């Protein structure tokens, strides 16, 4: 009685080649947790151009993609290196005084966190807008004319609204999926589910491919069904230097190192050469990493425990 429709397993190279095109709006989501650096690096290697990059927090991955020349525009709500400071490559494309000769300013379209979440929710629910209580007396609506007001039909005044965001492709990382693309995740959920449902195409990248029976044993853990997933990529350690709850820790040292690397365009280019362009895939990236550093990121176990769904026949 399985609804199996066949495997969607692909390599990252094939998944990016098939589903990410020049000019696309791309959302590599994951709030601090489960950011698919592996997908971002493959997009850099495949030299995609003129992308609109949407993410609540562009994080290092969009700093790297901007440095590599993939982006024409950013849609975001918080533009920094979390816990460290600035995203220097992006600053060089957003501050006129820092712009290199021949470079143009990135377009920016910014919201608050709740606004970005609401944009994905509206996109996923096929709503023309998402209402929220924010922006009142802030300069954000003046800076972004897509933040508007809507009149309540119950006579209680106006509320703020953001428009739907429907990326051409959403790329989410998670702990596990089956080969059909039923994705399960725990820890910080960010807006992986909302971004995936809002997108026209979905690439799901996971630490582990599990049998469908594992998914079906705990259906409340599923955040995204295979129905909306176009490609499943098995990419262990694919979120580094971000992290995967229970699998590995955030590489905070790298987030600090990037601050130094990214302050100069030349050092940034050199890092991209060494760790992205000259690395064919994520397996090679891992092989190139210091093994002791990797080991140190593994947490000790903290099991959730099992619950009983009951067999009803």
């Amino acid at each position, binding site marked *: 009685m399985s609804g*199996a429709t066949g495997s969607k397993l692909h390599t990252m190279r094939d998944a990016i080649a098939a589903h990410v095109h020049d000019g696309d709006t791309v959302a590599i989501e994951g709030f601090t947790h489960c950011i698919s650096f592996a997908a971002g690096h493959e997009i850099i290697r495949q030299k995609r151009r003129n992308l609109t990059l949407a993410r609540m927090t562009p994080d290092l991955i969009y700093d790297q993609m901007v440095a590599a020349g993939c982006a024409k525009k950013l849609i975001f709500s918080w533009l920094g290196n979390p816990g460290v400071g600035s995203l220097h490559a992006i600053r060089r494309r957003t501050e006129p005084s820092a712009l290199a000769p021949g470079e143009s300013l990135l377009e920016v379209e910014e919201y608050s966190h709740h606004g970005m979440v609401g944009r994905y929710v509206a996109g996923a629910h096929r709503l023309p807008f998402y209402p929220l209580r924010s922006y009142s007396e802030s300069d954000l609506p003046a800076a972004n004319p897509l933040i508007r007001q809507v009149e309540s039909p119950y006579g209680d005044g106006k509320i703020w609204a953001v428009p739907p965001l429907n990326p051409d492709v959403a790329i989410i990382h998670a702990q596990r999926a089956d080969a059909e693309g039923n994705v399960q995740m725990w820890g910080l959920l960010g807006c992986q589910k909302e971004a995936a449902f809002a997108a026209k195409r979905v690439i799901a990248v996971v630490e582990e491919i599990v049998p469908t029976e594992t998914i*079906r044993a705990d259906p409340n853990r599923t955040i995204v069904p295979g129905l909306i997933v176009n490609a499943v990529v098995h990419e262990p350690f694919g979120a580094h230097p971000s992290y995967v709850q229970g699998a590995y820790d955030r590489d905070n040292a790298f987030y600090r190192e990037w601050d130094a690397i990214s302050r100069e365009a030349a050092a940034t280019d050199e890092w991209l050469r060494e760790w992205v362009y000259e690395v064919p895939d994520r397996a090679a990236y891992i092989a190139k990493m210091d093994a002791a550093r990797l080991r140190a990121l593994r947490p000790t176990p903290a099991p959730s425990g099992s619950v009983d769904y009951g067999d009803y026949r």
Partner: protein
Amino acid sequence: MSAPKGPEATPNELMVVAAARALEGRRVCFVGVGLPNIAVNLAKRTIAPQMELVYEAGVFGASPARLPLSIGDPTIVTGSTATVSMHDLFGLYLQGGRIDVGFLGGAQIDRFGNLNTTVIGDYAAPKTRLPGSGGACEIAINAKEIMVIMRQSKRSFVERLDFRTSPGHLDGAAHAERVRHDEGWLSAGPTVVVTDLAVYGFDADGEMTLRTLHPGATLDAVRESIGWKIRIPTGDVPTTPPPSAEELRLIREELDPTGAYV
């Protein structure tokens, strides 16, 4: 396949089998309570094994080990691919446009496939208080296609609904097309109505039209149990292909062994 072991197929069995067969080729089906539940589960066991069953209670990819009495039965949860809140089910799955076909029934249907599940008589002082919409109103608007399964009679196939709970082709295809476009409906409206006597489709005007007569049913019986002059194509009306032995076995032995539904 061998011949059916039991008696000849009953009108209800004919209805369930015809409805199940109408699902051929559909991928994602929103399952309603009662007869649709049996029809969809029969389809999944026969001509549509790849079909994903979605229950409005919050289940995607159900594999019920028994036929659920209600659409919120525990057997639809265990072994499903995703069990989600109703907010997600109605917002992300249905309104988000992920449902290929929704099955509806009703106390009244009109020639354009509009449905009443709310009241018989006046709304404020009803003769009969029916269950109401449930998810039907939004299923009618957001599922890409609607199929209807209900027994036919002059009380249920009516010239004029007492209350329009769920829109079908409205006052006809032209009106429906305009509204669908203006209001962003995903639904192409009802395409099939399966009854205990026949299978109907909708013509270019959006009006219900006889497609096939069940074995044993007559044109007179059809006409006498519909409250308007039903459109019947010229020439011979084909007969609904009869249930196979395997379909009857599944209904009688697996899906409804106590005969509670069919």
